[in-house]
């Protein structure tokens, strides 16, 4: 070790940011062509903050979270479709995409953990939940079975499972949906991860249970101080939890900013569409929901220019540029960015005059 050794690593860790994703691309080669699930996504997240990633099915939300967890490259066997990843993912000063897979594996479950959508299929049916949590703890901590068991019971208790020491001996199928999701959360939190990714954590649950699970995630975040990414297609969920919102469309970010801003002054037609299709109890019931017309684009043949243009009701007002040029993210407010060809003043006017009154 020499003291004045020059810095060898070219890209530097972003200062002060806990998680930084830069120009992330995740492409899957298939027989039909290259599926560009995520195509140039960047965002940052600090400790103790919650980022909500919103978008339709197939917009690249889950693919992004799996990329951060390093699960696209883990456990590939034979000639399975190998994802092509590029860009940078910085977690607590370490770049993950270029790291040794085994190093990333050691971070998984310890520094970053994930809650999956359907807890019934995400838990192993043949092992007791106690065993599964103990296993998650002992991978990263050299402790006795008893100590790990104590820790598992403690967490089951913390996530609100009654009689945790008894229920730890039960199998996943013996729990209700909400209880199973609590088990998933306990398992994710067992190593005090600094980054928690919740991929549609309430989608598979009963509506009455959804609120409880969201409350639990919020409380735990306060308690553990971790950074949380919550992935959902339900704007109600992000309204509930997120400090920041990132709206994804066809593998790209179309709008991101503080939750307050995105909800009160959204600056992208797609975000308007999402807001218009969200049922709200504080509005007249007679008003119809306004769905986003059309269906999500193919990720093999992403529409040229702005990927949203075939479905955008305002495309005509902008002209040909919407079909030829990919719009870049531009600042539209404090920490608030949107990628749209429409002039900022025009968007502001359309929102206040045409869209907001109808919501």
């Amino acid at each position, binding site marked *: 070790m020499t003291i004045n050794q020059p810095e060898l690593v070219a890209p530097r860790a972003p200062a002060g940011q806990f998680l930084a994703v830069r120009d992330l691309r995740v492409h899957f080669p298939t027989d039909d062509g290259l599926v560009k699930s995520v195509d140039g996504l960047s965002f940052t997240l600090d400790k103790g903050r919650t980022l909500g990633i919103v978008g339709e099915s197939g917009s690249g939300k889950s693919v992004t979270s799996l990329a951060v967890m390093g*699960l696209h490259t883990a456990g590939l*066997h034979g000639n399975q479709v190998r994802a092509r990843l590029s860009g940078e993912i910085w977690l607590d000063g370490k770049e993950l995409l270029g790291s040794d897979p085994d190093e990333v594996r050691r971070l998984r*479950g310890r520094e970053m953990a994930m809650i999956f959508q359907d807890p019934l299929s995400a838990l*192993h*049916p*043949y092992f007791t939940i106690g065993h599964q949590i103990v296993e*998650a703890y002992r991978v990263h901590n050299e402790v006795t079975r008893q100590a790990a068991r104590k820790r598992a019971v403690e967490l089951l208790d913390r996530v609100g499972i009654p009689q945790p020491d008894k229920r730890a001996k*039960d199998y996943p199928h013996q729990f209700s949906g909400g209880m199973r999701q609590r088990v998933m959360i306990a398992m994710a939190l067992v190593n005090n991860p600094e980054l928690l990714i919740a991929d549609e954590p309430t989608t598979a649950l009963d509506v009455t249970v959804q609120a409880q699970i969201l409350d639990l995630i919020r409380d735990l975040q306060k308690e553990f101080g971790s950074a949380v990414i919550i992935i959902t297609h339900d704007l109600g969920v992000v309204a509930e939890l997120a400090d920041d919102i990132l709206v994804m469309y066809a593998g790209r970010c179309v709008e991101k900013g503080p939750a307050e801003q995105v909800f009160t002054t959204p600056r992208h037609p797609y975000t308007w569409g999402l807001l218009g299709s969200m049922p709200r109890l504080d509005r007249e019931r007679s008003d119809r929901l306004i769905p986003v017309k059309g269906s999500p684009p193919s990720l093999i043949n992403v529409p040229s220019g702005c990927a949203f243009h075939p479905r955008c009701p305002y495309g005509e007002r902008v002209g040909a540029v919407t079909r030829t040029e990919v719009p870049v993210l531009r600042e539209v407010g404090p920490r608030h960015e949107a990628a749209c060809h429409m002039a900022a003043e025009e968007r502001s006017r359309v929102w206040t005059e045409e869209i907001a009154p109808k919501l």
Partner: protein
Amino acid sequence: MAARGGPPGGAGRLRHPPGATARPSTVLAYLIRRLTAVVVMLLIVTLATFAIFFMIPKLTGTDPALLFVGKQADPAAIEGIREKMGLSDPVLVQFWKFVEGLVAGRDYANGVDVTHCPAPCFGYSFRNEQEVWPVLTSRLPVTLSLAAGACLLWVIGGVAAGVVSALKRGSVWDRSAMSVALAGVSLPIYFTGLVSLAIFSYALDLINVDYEPLTQNPGKWFESLILPWITLAFLYAAMYARLTRATMLEILGEDYIRTARAKGLGEGVVIGKHAMRSTMTPILTILGLDLGALLGGAVLTETTFNLPGLGQGAVRAISDKDLPIILGVTLIAAFFIVIANLVVDLLYAVIDPRVRLS
């Protein structure tokens, strides 16, 4: 006699109601119910085989007594046998006496001489007037040796090949292993068996295939069984490799495998523990049923290699029209299959916590 059946209730994809912990009392009640069913089942099989084997000679005009005595018998001797064997009794009476003999033994008497046949009495061979039960018990160890050794080979070989194929899907290994497996499934035993005999026994003179019991000469026992083991295991290993590969590939796509990786578990634990645990469930089920069916006699293998097992006994009995032996082998085979089914069902409840015994 290797009939194949699916696992009871489909392969591990059952969704059962929550709270499926079986209490000991319900397990006991279940066992008693199942064992009763086993007895009833065996009685029905006995009745059916009895009816077929003892009625058909009557319908076709062949006299069982004649079969027993031989062609050049005088009418008095035939009449004596008919009397002694009770062949002129009504069928149901004959059946009752047969079942009674199975349970308690029976005496054959025609007033002049009495022959006692101890339980379980399957009667006497038409061919050489031997008691059937000792014939069966002398043949059973051969079949047992064959099945046990082959089973060990095919489980280890088949599962290992299947797992490696699944993990290296599309590789040269996978494609060649699956081609070999396809050959194994398609080639009949009398082909692979004869080829191996021709090469290793006749041409190279490496292996002497004359069977000797384990208790008399373990070395010769082993030597005589190597080729039958490999031949039989080849067929089953091929099936198990394909089953293992397909199951493993399906399991690897499951969400809980992703969860295991998300926990930070190494690939060894993910595959060796999480994926294998699920893959073994359907395999153990099929294994129980296959083994049960095989214990009734591996007809082709035993015939090809001239092994004096139950299967070979059955074939000889059929060509000799030796009805009591046929009946005996059928009952033994049915017994093993019914018991194997019960064991598999019990095993299923042990290996899959979602299955409830009720």
